[in-house]
């Protein structure tokens, strides 16, 4: 085999190695992206229905306060009766809030009937599992990048790479 064909073979091998590193990193990154999306979805998942219903009830109670907290005894005054001084728009809003409570509660119930909601404990558990898998992937990616660097290849790390993986000691990498 001539020196030229040997060199050509070496070059082809190096190119193949570069491609393999690149492909492996891309596969890992694709999986990382999927898990990050899943984590985002879990993080932003609707709160349990009871929490939402409680929030709605508290908000409606606050809105209705000008009526529920209204002191009606002034109407019973014998001599000093004066028409109460109320903030008109707030009083009207309070009346609407009281009237709308069943309809709004029903709508919130209907919204939850279409949602996939898990309990907080299940959500935390799922997130912890995702985080563990994400960290394993990040460590594997970092390991590959360092292997590539050792072979003289440059693969840029992701800007959102996990610092725990990027700064991990060699002994902590797979």
């Amino acid at each position, binding site marked *: 085999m001539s020196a030229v064909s040997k060199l050509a073979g070496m070059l082809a091998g190096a190119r193949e190695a570069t491609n393999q590193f690149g492909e492996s990193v891309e596969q890992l990154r694709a999986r990382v992206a999927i898990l990050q999306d899943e984590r985002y979805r879990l993080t932003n998942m609707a709160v349990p229905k009871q929490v939402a219903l409680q929030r709605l009830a508290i908000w409606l109670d606050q809105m209705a306060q000008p009526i529920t907290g209204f002191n009606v005894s002034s109407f019973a005054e014998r001599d000093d009766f004066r028409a109460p001084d109320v903030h008109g728009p707030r009083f009207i809003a309070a009346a609407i809030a009281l009237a709308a409570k069943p309809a709004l509660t029903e709508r919130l119930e209907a919204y939850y009937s279409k949602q996939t909601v898990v309990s907080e404990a299940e959500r935390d558990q799922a997130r912890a599992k995702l985080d563990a898998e994400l960290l394993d992937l990040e460590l594997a990616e970092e390991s590959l990048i360092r292997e590539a660097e050792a072979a003289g290849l440059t693969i*840029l790390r992701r*800007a959102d790479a*996990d*610092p*725990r993986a*990027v700064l991990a*000691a060699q*002994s*902590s990498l797979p």
Partner: protein
Amino acid sequence: MIENDGAETTMVASIKIDKARLRVIERIARRERGAAGTANDARNHVAVARSELRLDLQKHEVIRARTGVDDQTLGQIAGMKERLVELDEEFAAAEHEQTVANERSTAAGGLLMACERFLEDGGRQRP
């Protein structure tokens, strides 16, 4: 949380953190910043050459308009237009390279900042 803070290696959960790795990330960020600067210079160089050529071309067009048909000027204008097309292509390529280099530099800089913050925060995990 990081244990044994101040030492070169610390533990975060079950991962051993090697603080010296930060220097590698700093070096990469510096390299990418340098590459972005070089790409920026190269793009600007082509942009200046293109602008100067356009001005020259305009001057020659004015001369041609004043002096009527002038073979020498016409020849120069044709040559300039060809060069301008080349420069336009060079500029597009340089601009693309600059964009890529800037993105790489931003990514490397962002990662460096995240790593520095991670160590400053005592190894607190990201939310």
